[in-house]
Structures are given as C-alpha cells and as structure tokens.
C-alpha cells in the first residue's frame, strides 16, 4: 500500500498509525507497538477523514524509534479503531495458539483484559468478529474450495466493522468493508499459496485446484481481486470524505491495484 503514497502522504498515514498506538496505550494500557496493525490504522485514517474536526499532527515521543522524528494524530476517532485492533489481535492470538504456536499464548494475560473492555464497549463488533471466526473455521473444516465462502465471511465481518463509522452512510461503508475484506482474504490466499502447499495449511485455491502451479488459480484470483476492488472503489466514491482525500484516492485507485499486480505476478511489494 505504501508504494503508491507520496512521502508526505505516507508521513500522514504513519501519524495515524502512531495515534492509534497511543490510543491503545492509553485506553488499554497495552504496550501496543507489536499489536498495532496497518489495517486498523487505515480504519482510523478513514474514520477521521469522514469527520470534520481539524487535527494537527503533534510530535510523538516513541521509545521504539528514539532517533526518528515521528508525528502522531490523536483524535476521538481513534477509540473505535483501537477497540477493533484489540478484538482482531485477540482472535489472531487464539487462532495462532490453536494452530500450534503455543508461545503466542504468552500475550494472553495482557490481551484478555483489553479484549473484555473492547467487547463491552462495542459488543456488536465483538460479536461480528467472533461469528466470522466461527464461520471461517467451519469453512476450513469442510475444506471448501469455493473462494466465495471464506472471502465472503471475512468480507461480512469487515463490512460490519466499517458500517459503524457513520450511521447515515452505513450501506456504502458496509459495501466498502465487505469488498475490501474479500480482497484482503483473497490476496492473502494468493500470496500464501506456496507456503501453504509446503505446510499443508488450508488454502481455498489449493483445495479447488490441487497444486499451486495451476494456471487457473491466477485467473480466478485475478477476476475476484479486481472485481472486489472495483466494488470497493465504487462504494468509496460515494462517501463524504472531508479530509485526506488524496491519500485515500491513492490507496483505493492506485495502491491496492499495484499490490494486486505484484501478488498476481508473484513479486513482493
């Protein structure tokens, strides 16, 4: 995503990232730097861009980057993305532990209280995340080779996360989240083909086509990735973006497209 952003735009993106990190520290007393996800930073960037409050990036004193001059944007719009970040991180941890990475359980004592707080603040979102997790493990168990099933389940979750950003625009936000979620699921599946083939992990394309070398995989992935992005971009175009329009335009019309091209060509972005 960052490849297509201009330097000052990427600085702004990072300032949202650091603002989110700050919110996680403040709201959940998490030493969060290892938990902050770029996806949730994006959610924060979008959430703040739909609001009309002006914000001024302030210097960020970060223990991890003591020599770098970094900026952070701290607004109330960070509350919800921070909670989403906690919810996703918690389920990711549970998932990793179940997949045999037992050492990941070390984070549980820190994450569990944060998870409880985030769930009580946003019970519907917590439910959406846990429902998606359950739906995905069912799909995985029956070894589905239908790309619509897992990517759709992931899309519904992200749709439900996004739709809360603005009650008046919930349909477009849902559409944006749904299609972005579909894209994310499929781009990861396409990116992990060879890894999953070696490890024997579930991969929807391997279940359908048997081996990572099948040329059909590229075709199916290409259609679904670009179609999902087209729908996401359409929904984005209908949103009342009040700031950061250039950054968001670049992400939706260039960055995601470029990432797709790279993954389809098997290169690393």
């Amino acid at each position: 995503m960052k490849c297509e952003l201009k330097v000052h735009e990427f600085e702004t993106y990072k300032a949202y990232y650091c603002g989110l990190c700050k919110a996680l520290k403040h709201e959940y007393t998490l030493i969060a730097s290892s938990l902050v996800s770029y996806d949730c930073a994006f959610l924060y960037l979008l959430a703040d861009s739909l609001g009309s409050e002006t914000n001024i990036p302030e210097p960020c004193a970060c223990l991890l980057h003591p020599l770098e001059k970094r900026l952070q944007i701290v607004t109330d719009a960070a509350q919800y993305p921070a909670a989403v970040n906690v919810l996703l991180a918690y389920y990711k941890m549970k998932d990793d532990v179940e997949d045999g990475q037992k050492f990941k359980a070390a984070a549980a004592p820190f994450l569990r209280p944060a998870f409880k707080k985030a769930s009580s603040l946003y019970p519907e979102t917590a439910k959406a995340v846990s429902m998606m997790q359950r739906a995905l493990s069912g799909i995985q168990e029956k070894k589905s080779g239908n790309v619509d099933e897992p990517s759709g389940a992931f899309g519904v979750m992200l749709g439900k996360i996004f739709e809360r950003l603005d009650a008046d625009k919930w349909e477009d936000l849902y559409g944006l989240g749904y299609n972005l979620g579909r894209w994310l699921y499929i781009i990861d599946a396409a990116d992990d083909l060879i890894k999953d083939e070696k490890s024997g992990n579930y991969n929807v394309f391997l279940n359908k086509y048997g081996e990572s070398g099948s040329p059909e995989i590229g075709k199916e992935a290409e259609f679904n990735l670009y179609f999902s992005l087209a729908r996401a971009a359409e929904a984005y175009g209908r949103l009342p973006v009040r700031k950061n329009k250039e950054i968001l335009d670049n992400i939706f019309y260039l960055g995601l497209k470029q990432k797709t091209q790279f993954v389809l060509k098997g290169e690393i972005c």
Partner: protein
Amino acid sequence: MNPYSVLGVSENASEEDIKRAYRTLVKKFHPDRYAGDPNAAAAATEKLKQINQAYDMLIKMRQTGQDYSQTYTAGSDIARVRAAVARGDLAAAEMLLDAIRDQSAEWHYLKGIVLLRRGWYEGARQHLEAAYQMNPGNPEYRQAWEVVNQTGGAYRNFFSGQNRALNYTLCASCAACSLFSCCCRYF
C-alpha cells in the same frame, strides 16, 4: 402484527418510503450477516418472515391487489424468483432458485444476479457465463456477462494516466437493465 411498526414507517408513508424501508431491512436481516451464529440466524429468518408479511400487507393495501398479484404471487416459479430479486429479498430468491430442478439459461441468469448482489462474485461469474453460453442471443444475459467481465478492467484503467475523474461505475453501465439497475446494492 402492526405492519407499520415492523417496517418502521408511518401510516401515511408513500409506497416509495415503504419500499425503501423494506429494502434496508431485508439487507440488515440477510442470513449471510448471521453466519456462525445459529440462534441469531434463526431469529433473523423469523424477522425476515415478518418483514415480508408486513411489506405484502402494506403493498397490497396500496395497490388494491392488482399489480401485486401479477408481480408477486402469480406466475411460474421463475417469475416469483424475479419478483423476489426485484423487491430486494435475495434470501427468498435463492431459496426459490434452489428448489427449482430445471437449470435453464434463465435459472443461471437469476442465480448469477442473486450471487452478484450477495457479493459472491466467483459464483456469479460462473452462472452468468453459463446463461450467456446457453443463450447468447438474449440481450439481458449478454449485458450481464459483459458487465461482469469488464468491471475489473474498468477499475484497472481508471485513475491511470490523465484520467483522474471518477467516471466509471457498475451502475452506469447497466442502468438499462431491469434487474441489473439495482445490482450496486449489497444485500
């Protein structure tokens, strides 16, 4: 059951208001949103039933039964699927489709449209391709097939070079087509 409170509209709501409220509600209670939680899914199905009853009652009251019987209850199974898609109840349309044995070109076309609006694009592509191949002379099938194939490409070309104005949408390219005109909505 008070149909007005089920749909959340006032007693002097226009037919358009009722339709809009109905479309929003069937989207909110689509089963896909409750996958992974059987209790919530069952509650949503029950709710959908109520919403449909309420909608039927109010539309019947407003249209004095005439148009209603033509577009909804009468006709073949396939006609009922079309009516369900047109009013936005994709869950009902899909249930009707799954109960039909004869998979004609029209069946594939409607299945493709339902999947498209549900956000299941791979399945949509397969069924719309099947409909087009079974009956390439049908303009509706051809148009659907073209839109499915061109949308990704339109996105890829958009915003590259000088063309930085947003001038493509799926909706614009399919406005002529009766069922397609609302395909931009998500269930």
